């Protein structure tokens, strides 16, 4: 195994990424590198729910905090499960692998882990987005691509 050949696979708790995972496993076999599966629990969604509960629903802080914790706990549970499945799949293919679960901003955490793990390539899946949406809103994946020190490969799910 070569440390220069670490492959960082980025997955999400909010959607399935079968093609991305399969592709990352193939790449890890090709490069004979270690697969690092990263699941980032994005805090933006639970934060937006808490804001909506507070600003529109006029619900107090405590129920907001409780629901934030519940959502994060659920996402964490799902993230751990997904990572375990990926690591298991990698081991079945004799690919060294580990799972990393982080909370926070997808772009920041992805770039941080890519640096820490000395990733040779970052593999990330995304759903199809129209040209107009990409133009207006951009996407976290674009930010990763722009700021990553290693190549980023994007798989259309």
């Amino acid at each position, binding site marked *: 195994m070569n440390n220069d050949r670490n492959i960082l696979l980025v997955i999400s708790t909010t959607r399935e990424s079968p093609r991305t995972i399969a592709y990352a496993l193939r790449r890890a076999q090709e490069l004979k590198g270690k697969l690092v599966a990263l699941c980032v629990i994005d805090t933006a969604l639970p934060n937006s*729910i808490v804001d909506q509960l507070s600003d529109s629903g006029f619900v107090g802080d405590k129920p907001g905090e409780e629901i934030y914790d519940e959502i994060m706990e659920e996402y964490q549970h799902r993230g751990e499960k997904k990572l375990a499945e990926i690591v298991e799949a990698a081991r079945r293919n004799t690919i060294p692998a580990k799972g990393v679960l982080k909370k926070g901003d997808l772009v920041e955490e992805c770039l941080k882990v890519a640096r820490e793990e000395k990733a040779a390539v970052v593999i990330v899946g995304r759903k199809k987005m129209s040209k107009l949406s990409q133009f207006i809103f951009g996407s976290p994946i674009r930010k990763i691509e722009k700021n990553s020190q290693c190549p980023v490969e*994007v798989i259309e799910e």
Partner: protein
Amino acid sequence: MADTTRILIDTRPLPVILLSKSYRYLVFALLIAVVSYLFTLSPPEGLSPQGYRALIVFGLCVFLWVTQMLPLAITGLLAIVAPPVFGVLPAKDTFALFGHETVFFILGVFIMAAAMMKSGLSTRVALKLLRGAGSSPKKLLFQIMVAATLLSFVMSEHAVAAMLFPIALEISRALEFVPYGGSYGRLLFLSMAWGCIVGGIGTLLGSGRAPLSVGILYQMTGEQIGFVQWSLATLPVVIMTFTAAYFMITRYFSVDVQSVAEADRILSEKNRLQGKPSASEWFITVIFFLTVVAWMKFGTKPGLAVISILSVVALFVFKAVRWKDLEEYVNWGVFLMYGGALCLSSVMDKTGAGPYLATQVIQGVGGNPLMVVIIFTLVALVLTEAISNSAVVAIMTPVAISVCIPLGIDPKGITLLIALASGLGNALPMSTPAMAIAFSAGYFKLKDTLVPALLMSFFSVLALLLAGKFWWPVLGIHILK
């Protein structure tokens, strides 16, 4: 390398990136420029300078409520201070409107709901209502909807959704569901959200928008809708929309699990762990029932607000709740939002801006009363999918009442229609916090709910118009006099 792979480069132009970072400030600058320009113009014919300025303030608040560029409560505060700033009404008049009875009724209702949540009474009731589903998946969905609906009769539907969400999550875990792994997972969360939405229109306690609309009606016409009249008027709408929602959930989607016995076991266990009700829970239950009876018997005199505040005092006499607890469960912004909305409706009415706007609307829609009623109902239903339902009531009720009076439409009827329609947003995550919470579970996406939500909206309008035509006249509310 597979053909599915390609490397993308961020090609967004610099102006787009800059615009995305600074649009908020640009919009505010533009808003100030537009408002300043409008103030330099002469009032249109038939509208006093004071009324014209009131109309600009109204437009400004509508923009801010719709876009939510400021929190709703802060726009509410702006609605109180803008009239004196622009010389529409003196400050002492607008601040006095903030002390409206409705604001204090809502205060009492929110504090009582906070006591129920803090003591665990609401969770206990929810768990009791979810008992005994056995292994029947449809029965469990029905019970979730019943629990959400009944609880939303007595406390804010948003708080009910927040409280039921962990229970729904626990059920989904017990049944080992995964997002997009099947249909039943999404039904669990959809039945929770739709139950809250349907229940939220049932009484004056399900949300702040119901008392707000009653307050605006009273302020503009002197007419009242009491606790009993409101609840009776909404009852058939609740029954019809509940039935439609249940059939939509169980027929449109497939119930793809055979048994929910494991969920039933977990709910039974949670019920068992609840133990016996505490003294606080008993006090709160007794005080709540006495309060409802008092609202029914003495809602007009001394009034709903007086009774609800006395009930709050009683909660503290029996030490059923502490002030610290209230601060955690009550969002005081609610009073600023509703106080501001009441102030704005009064400003519109007193300055003649409301009647002027009404004349323009009547000219625009042709003055057919039935058409006016249908248009206002539909607009409320559509608007509430995209903006806060309280904001819909705050924006539309004063205009609708002003329009309806000259057309011979009962202001009580149109108030009810707008308040109910604005509570029935059921498709988008931004329509109501209950839907946002349900979406957050990750079991369904917008495309999954669009068609059933559209059908539900159709049934909702039908239910509202049927109730308005055949039931409300029995209660003395004739939409078309």
